């Protein structure tokens, strides 16, 4: 069972990374608008279908990032 001695520190390291990523997400406002992003995927189609006749597309796709 000595493997546990090594596995546990690795698990803790993974948790530290997860914690760090989460802190970063909170800081960069990822949890500010949870309703909006869920339906954003629906609108992506429109951007492709209307690319030819819309000049504003570039600005928008930049903003969506």
């Amino acid at each position, binding site marked *: 069972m000595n493997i546990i001695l090594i596995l*546990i520190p690795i698990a803790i390291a993974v948790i530290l990374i*997860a*914690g760090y990523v989460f*802190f970063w997400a909170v800081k960069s406002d990822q949890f*500010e608008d*949870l309703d909006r992003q869920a339906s954003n995927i629906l609108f992506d189609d429109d951007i492709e279908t209307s690319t030819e006749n819309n000049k*504003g597309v570039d600005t*928008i796709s930049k903003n969506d990032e």
Partner: protein
Amino acid sequence: MSSTLLDCFHCGEPIPKSFTLQVKIENVDQSMCCHGCAAVAETIVSNNLTGYYRHRTEKSVKGSTLIPQELLNLQSYDLTEIEQEFTQSHGSTKEVILTVENVTCAACAWLIERKLGTLSGIEQCSVNTSSARLSLKWQSKQLKLSDILLALAQIGYKAYPFKADVAEQNEVAATKAYLRRLTVAGLATMQVMMFAMASYFDVIGSDGDGSLSNGLNDYFRYISLLLALPVVFYSSTPFYNNALSALFAKRLNMDVPVSIAIFLAFIASAYATITKQGDVYFESVCMFAFFLLLGRYLEQITKRKAAQSSSNLLKLIPSIATLVEDDAYIQIPAKSLTLDQIVLVKPGEIIPADGIIIKGETQCNEAILTGEQLPVNKTLGDWVFASTVNHDQTIEICVKHERSDQLISKIIALQEQAVIDKPKLATLADKLSQYVVIGILVLSISTYLGWWLAGNDDALWIALAVLVATCPCALSLATPSAYTAASSQLQHLGLLAKQGSALDTLTQLTHINFDKTGTLTTGQFAIKHIDSMGNNENEIFAIIAAIESQSTHPIANTFKPYLDNTYEVDNVTNFPGGGLSATVNNEQYFLGHHQFVSNNIPANDYVLADNFDNNVIIYLATAKNIIASISLNDDIRTESEPLINKLKSIGITTTLLTGDNSLNADSVAQKLNIDNIAKGQSPKDKLTYLKNLQDKGEIVAMFGDGVNDAPVLSQAHLSFAMGTGADIAKSSADIVLLHDDLSKIGQAITLAKKTKRIIIQNFCWAIGYNCTALPFAMAGLLPPYIAAIGMSLSSIIVVSNSLRLLKDK
């Protein structure tokens, strides 16, 4: 095909007969109900944004075209001094956050972002649908803010800068902090729980006789200790802060035993780990902190949402003054006016400062200060007051008061004082938790003393088990979880509660005061009676509507629905304080009160119409004689009467507290069957009246909408403001009625009572569970993991019980 539908494609309202405007959307002609909707729809089509119609989940808001005054308001946002108040500049790039009205779904956000994306000069725009905010970055050289606002208006959205509440900034930061603390506690709990499971099922074996070696047991304990460190010293700090500040104020709150439990359990477990004796409670500590933080986080989200929604209500409308200097007119922000400067105020504009009229005469609507909605005549040498509205004529005023001496500033000062004086009611939860806290502490200490005196070496461990077993986790969740659920239910009713405890106060009320104009009444004139003297009523209305279409008087709005474009109106002359004269279809008419009308026509024998209820009566006359009289009155809201009856049936005394001094106040009180009436009250009188009631021990609520209600709204135990009311009224109130619907108050009271019942049930359950576990813990028979599991189950039951509040829609 869809053109046969009777409802407007854009806003879903019924289409008036004979209106046949259609807009081609995605190759189908769609019917529109008005020019406003059609204009918005056409803009959407011409910008290739019809995807909006495919994806929207709710109908749009009725489109409206901007009136010239609104356009002018938009442009005043561009004035440098005003813009600086709410924008941030980085070189030529400017940044602003606006609140957008009527953002209902993700499609709205998409539409706004796409439309603004077509403007050149926009660097970044993103809409947050949950807070209804738009954040913008743009190049100020290429684009003006008013252009952006205009583009939004074209697709049917009104955006405003707003006064971000100081509270809101704090709430946002606090929410993020709680989210971080919650995550840390969550991640650590999962890990510690994993190690604890090993010892629960005895796979390690306490004496090295299990399937794992003895060394592993210590290893697990040290790892658990390590993982519990951030939970105790980072995640749980809000509890310690609250507990300390309560102790400093010589009070006890739920956070006191929570802090003691977390701290003692941790220290004892750490001691046990290092000295290799006794039990460890790391998993209990972590889970305890996690559950509590979850409750606090949910409560925090509700608070933040309320703070955001209430700052969205506080629109920043620029207050501009037209300064007269050497015969030149300069637009400056009202707040930079100084004494003895001369200001020009056009009809329909808001008067920017307290002053004396030096040129012209007019009528002013002072409803915002006094509550009386009929305009007051103002002539040379009369005082006019900041924030009131100039109705009739262009006037010039000389500024006579510094900004801080203005009448409106005095009311605001009164309001600020009232906020400080506001009595605080202890909620049911506060009262109950005091006893519980004392009980827990006394029991733990006596358990320790008892076992110690009996000579037991494990006295500390048993006392600790008592503390953990009776840990007020479920108790701490009992109230916040119920308030959170109830606040979200209130929001469904269209009521914005700034604090959950408002619900508790709602069940304790004994007396409710109402403002009259704009609260119990609509604040708008409605036609009560017409004596058309044999003439066609519709024709009379059409003539009046035509004449009034040129007027800004509050009465004019009443006749708008009767406007008929076949009536041609000309030569409209306004006689301030008298009425209007005009030619309609080439015939001369006079419209106004009796004195004015009879002065302008040959003597006649028409007698004054009977005046019931102190109505306002206007007369219409041709050049020869009077042809109609119309009685108008401020309309009582239809929901007012059921509300008053409901309040009476549950034993609440009602008072009409109004600035109006006319007989109309009495007739409203009588019609609605209100118990007491105090009329002609200045803001200060209202405050005194309310304080007297409070001194008598009454729990008093106040309903209001105007600036003159703000001080008394702040002082009342509980206050309600109408959503259409003045900003300061809304920011003073505990609950805002977003849709002005008084009938929801009855439902809110029912909800508040139900919430109280749920809280009591939660307390009973939590205390009941603790009492059951207590004897076992005191006898030293409760293993720590059973205590921890019991605690979690108890918390889950409490939260589920609170969630029942969300069930009725």
